[in-house]
């Protein structure tokens, strides 16, 4: 409990230093999401590439961009790292608390936005209301919120930093982003049903199974990413 | 408190010995009376730009010879020194100063007679100044 409180304190310390920036970005992304949802209108099916893109971004990447610039990765020589994190690692804070604080912070950056997005989508999209009862929609939401954990938590898990020269960095970025985009495009062309649509079907047909599976994956993912960060902290040379 | 200690790094005499000797002279002259606290080892080390290892050595020797007393947690203080010892130090300090002056003169190839002349001259001037 004591550790949890200390971790929360550290996360809040970073958040408070940039509260205005965070709220601004939060608002901006919410409005963006809102405009995407409303352009779809309530007649357009949820089985649409745009919806897939919106979900993947919201549950994967967007929280990273919620961070104000000075708390994002900064380059020092061949090292990309988070200055605040490096500073904290020199203070007498246990590794456990430090790791915990990174995940709490990510949760604060990601969860409210994701939650809001899910709520707005259901309220504004009649198509979705037709397909899913409120109870099934809760299942659907948990599927996605869990996805935000076992996939999204790779973000705080990378907080220890990254060593790469510019060439490797550019190459890795292209491989990562380009690969993701390519996969996404191919998926959209090849399959008739979108990713989000599939999860709708899952929530409808196998609510219990998808619920359990999602929660188990989220719990496992959270532990995995935490130990991943702990391990990385020991491997990297902060030269 | 800064002590009037002057160290000669060019000298062959080890630094700790110079410190020890000059502190003894200060004690014998009464400038550092009984009960006066000596600066802490670290403080003197900074003033003289000498390591604490050297200062500690000098302090230890003073303590062993009974010139100072250390009270745990309070510091080092000048001890009570018997008059004959004070006298002895005064004498030896004067002797050493004279010896040094003579050494300097000799190294500049002055003869003993010349040295004596200089000595008398200085003494006379000094006496006149006093009047």
């Amino acid at each position, binding site marked *: 409990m004591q550790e949890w409180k200390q971790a929360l304190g550290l996360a809040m310390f970073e958040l408070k230093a940039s509260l205005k920036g965070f709220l601004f970005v939060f608002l901006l992304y919410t409005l963006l999401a809102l405009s995407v949802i409303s352009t779809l209108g309530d007649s357009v099916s949820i089985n649409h590439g745009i919806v897939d893109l919106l979900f993947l971004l919201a549950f994967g990447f967007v929280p990273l961009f919620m961070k104000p610039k000075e708390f994002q990765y900064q380059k020092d020589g061949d090292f990309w790292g988070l200055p605040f994190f490096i500073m904290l690692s*020199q203070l007498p*804070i246990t590794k456990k608390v430090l790791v915990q604080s990174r995940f709490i912070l990510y949760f604060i950056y990601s969860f409210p936005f994701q939650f809001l997005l899910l709520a707005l989508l259901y309220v504004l999209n009649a198509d979705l209301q037709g397909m899913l009862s409120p109870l099934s929609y809760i299942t659907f939401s948990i599927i996605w919120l869990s996805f935000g954990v076992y996939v999204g938590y790779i973000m705080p898990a990378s907080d220890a930093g990254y060593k790469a020269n510019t060439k490797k960095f550019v190459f890795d970025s292209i491989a990562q982003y380009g690969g993701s985009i390519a996969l996404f495009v191919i998926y959209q062309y090849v399959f008739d049903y979108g990713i989000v649509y599939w999860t709708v079907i899952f929530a409808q047909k196998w609510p219990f199974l998808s619920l359990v599976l999602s929660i188990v994956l989220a719990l496992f993912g959270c532990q995995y990413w935490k130990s991943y960060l702990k391990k990385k902290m020991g491997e990297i040379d902060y*030269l | 408190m800064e002590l009037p200690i002057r160290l000669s790094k*060019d000298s062959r005499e080890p630094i700790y010995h110079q410190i020890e000797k000059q502190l003894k002279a200060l004690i014998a002259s009464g400038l550092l009376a009984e009960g006066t606290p000596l600066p802490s080892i*670290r403080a003197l080390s*900074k003033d003289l*730009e000498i*390591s604490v*290892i050297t200062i500690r050595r000098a302090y230890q020797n003073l303590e062993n010879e009974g010139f100072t007393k250390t009270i745990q947690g309070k510091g080092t203080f000048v001890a009570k020194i018997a008059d004959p010892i004070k006298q002895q130090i005064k004498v030896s300090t004067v002797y050493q100063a004279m010896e040094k002056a003579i050494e300097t003169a000799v190294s500049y190839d002055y003869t003993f007679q010349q040295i004596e002349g200089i000595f008398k001259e200085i003494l006379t001037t000094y006496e006149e100044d006093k009047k």
Partner: protein
Amino acid sequence: MTATLEVSQIEKKVDDFQLGPINLQIDPGTITALVGNNGSGKSTLLKIIMNMVNPSAGHVKIFDTYISHEEDDWKSYISYQPQTVIGYNPFTGNKLKELIAPLYPNWDDALFLKLIEQFDIPLNKRFGKLSQGAQQKLSLALTIPRNTALLILDEPTSFMDIPSKQYLSDILVDWMEQGERSILLTSHQADDIQKLADYLFVLQNGKMIGNFEKDALTESYKRYWMNDALPDIPVSGEVSRNGKQIISNQPDITEQYLNDNNLQWLDRKALDLEEIITLLLAGKGRN
């Protein structure tokens, strides 16, 4: 007496730079200056001590605790101020103190306020907006009052004016007297070293040249002005010569040799620390 810090056989290879093997012991109550040319590995060594860089061999111990990734306890024994403090920029001095002070049970708030007042640092301004000198001063004010057994300062005075440097050395001397504490610092300022250091740990291009007691080092170097021409072969103890001047790091042996060979000298003078360090880093006078 248990050493405060013990560095044993530490090695690290970074690209084509090889640091070590390094052995260093720091005893309670002593100040050690880490001296070396640029790129000699001083900061890397400090980062290894702080466990921010993984050594390829060797280990570091603080008191009886090995410094490792598995343990966290050792961090409360060391306060470390890197050459460039990172992560402070978005925060004000007040905020940083709020973060740091509660982590150290012996935090001395009176000392913090004293430093802030003396150095005249605004606590309500973001760190990133302060001048380099003010940043350095604020970092010191956030580091020294932690009152840990070991204080590590990497180039603490590089942007400071003379009065502030003077004040800092007074503060550090005072700080040392509060208990069995130790300081390990790097500095390119001979002045800092002359005033504060008890030991000089000399590094050259990653190689350890030695850990010298300051006065023993200064006492062992003498420069002679010769009367007579010197022989072509090196004189015993000689480390460098320039016309009729020679420098020896073993004056006793040198003088013996000069006497035996009937060579007269006019004068003998000690070298200052800066000259000695220069000689050591030039690879001269190592035994």
